[in-house]
């Protein structure tokens, strides 16, 4: 993060939608971008200032009216409708530039610190949209990885259930990169899009290597996503949601295996994080400090994070409201919070 005091967060409400909030003082105070705390929420002539929550799909002729429909829950075609933001990803270089992955899947960005948002419509416009479908959580764009070696150029995003896409021009044009993925819930299991990618992760020093937790299968790419191969190896089940890479060891990867697509809880009621120190295939169970009986929580895709300390802290949140932290790369764990509502997102900032 460019400015450690600049934070973005939002709730989500079925009634009122999202109210995006920003802090410029490390979380002490929050306000809606464009409407500082205490200021009226309308302009003198009565116009609303709530532009910071306005996400409108690009339908302009200039950009080619990107797409019209995607696949709906029942398999019919359905128009794009904005539901909510799933993930905010701040730029690595500009504190006022933030990317937002939204449902129904699309990529937005703000260049004014969240006051206004516009769609990077080349993603929906490249043509495979009618074959995108919602996963059980909805059709969300949930992962945004910015390449630190190519700031302002290369971006990877992932969508459930469409797959991974890559841009080399800061989000203007996109290419699906799903070769090697195999999914039995689409008519052609090797199709170009339609894969329910749950999460992808990358080590900042090695942005050509990507790790993926798919809706079954843990995958790896060594060529910036051009092709993928399976590294599930000895995992007891390769279904799951989050995947993370160690802060200082690009070949050390973490996943939380979940029993199956229809049974979203740990195998045998034992909450186990699995760690590979070999970039996949060989995995070890990390159990110390985690419940090893009668545990039926899930760990959602955005609910795992690592810090930047030498010993690499690892953190994850559960649908049962616990946040587990390990101060030693996963060797042992402790619940640092245990009575929250279901946890959707865990982010870590290392203060220096």
């Amino acid at each position: 993060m460019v400015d450690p005091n600049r934070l973005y967060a939002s709730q989500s409400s079925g009634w009122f939608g999202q109210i995006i909030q920003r802090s410029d003082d490390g979380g002490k105070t929050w306000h809606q971008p464009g409407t500082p705390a205490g200021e009226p929420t309308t302009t003198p002539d009565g116009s609303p200032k709530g532009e910071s929550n306005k996400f409108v799909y690009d339908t302009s002729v200039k950009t080619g009216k990107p797409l019209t429909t995607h696949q709906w829950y029942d398999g019919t075609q359905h128009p794009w409708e904005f539901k909510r933001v799933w993930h905010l990803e701040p730029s690595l270089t500009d504190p006022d530039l933030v990317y937002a992955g939204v449902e129904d899947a699309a990529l937005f960005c703000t260049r004014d610190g969240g006051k206004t948002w516009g769609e990077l419509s080349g993603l929906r416009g490249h043509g495979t949209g009618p074959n995108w479908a919602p996963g059980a959580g909805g059709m969300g764009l949930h992962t945004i990885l910015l390449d630190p070696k190519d700031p302002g150029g290369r971006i990877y995003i992932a969508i459930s259930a469409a797959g991974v896409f890559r841009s080399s021009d800061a989000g203007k044009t996109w290419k699906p990169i799903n070769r090697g993925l195999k999914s039995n819930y689409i008519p052609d299991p090797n199709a170009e899009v339609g894969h329910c990618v749950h999460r992808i992760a990358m080590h900042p020093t090695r942005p050509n290597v990507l790790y993926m937790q798919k809706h079954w299968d843990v995958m790896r790419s060594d060529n910036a996503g051009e092709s993928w191969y399976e590294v599930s190896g000895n995992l007891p089940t390769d279904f799951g949601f989050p995947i993370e890479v160690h802060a200082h060891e690009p070949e050390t990867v973490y996943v939380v295996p979940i029993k199956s697509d229809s049974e979203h809880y740990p195998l045998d009621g034992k909450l186990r994080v699995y760690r590979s120190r070999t970039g996949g295939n060989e995995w070890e169970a990390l159990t110390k400090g985690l419940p090893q009986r009668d545990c039926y929580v899930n760990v959602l895709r955005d609910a795992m994070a690592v810090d930047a300390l030498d010993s690499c802290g690892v953190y994850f949140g559960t649908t049962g409201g616990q946040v587990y932290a390990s101060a030693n790369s996963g060797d042992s764990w402790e619940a640092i919070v245990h009575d929250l509502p279901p946890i959707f997102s865990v982010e870590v900032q290392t203060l220096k």
Partner: protein
Amino acid sequence: MIRVILPAHLRTLAAIDNEVALEVNGRPTQRSVLDALELRYPTLRGTIRDHETQKRRPFLRFFACEEDLSHEPPDAPLPDAVVSGQEPFLIIGSVAGG
């Protein structure tokens, strides 16, 4: 003989180990295959199609020969490869369901 492959939970419900082979009278269609399936395994009634409307449940899909047949009319003939038993008729839980 029409080969039908069911999602794991429906196989459990109907106590089926593997795929199902069904005899269907006349030119097989989605409707006639599902009728034959439900006749042999009455416990599956209502799990694939609504009891009353006979409409496919929204989180299920019908695939065959790498095509999505979910939106084909129920009385449309099934592909030759399915009719000959070369390819199975797949009943799949959509990814939106899990």
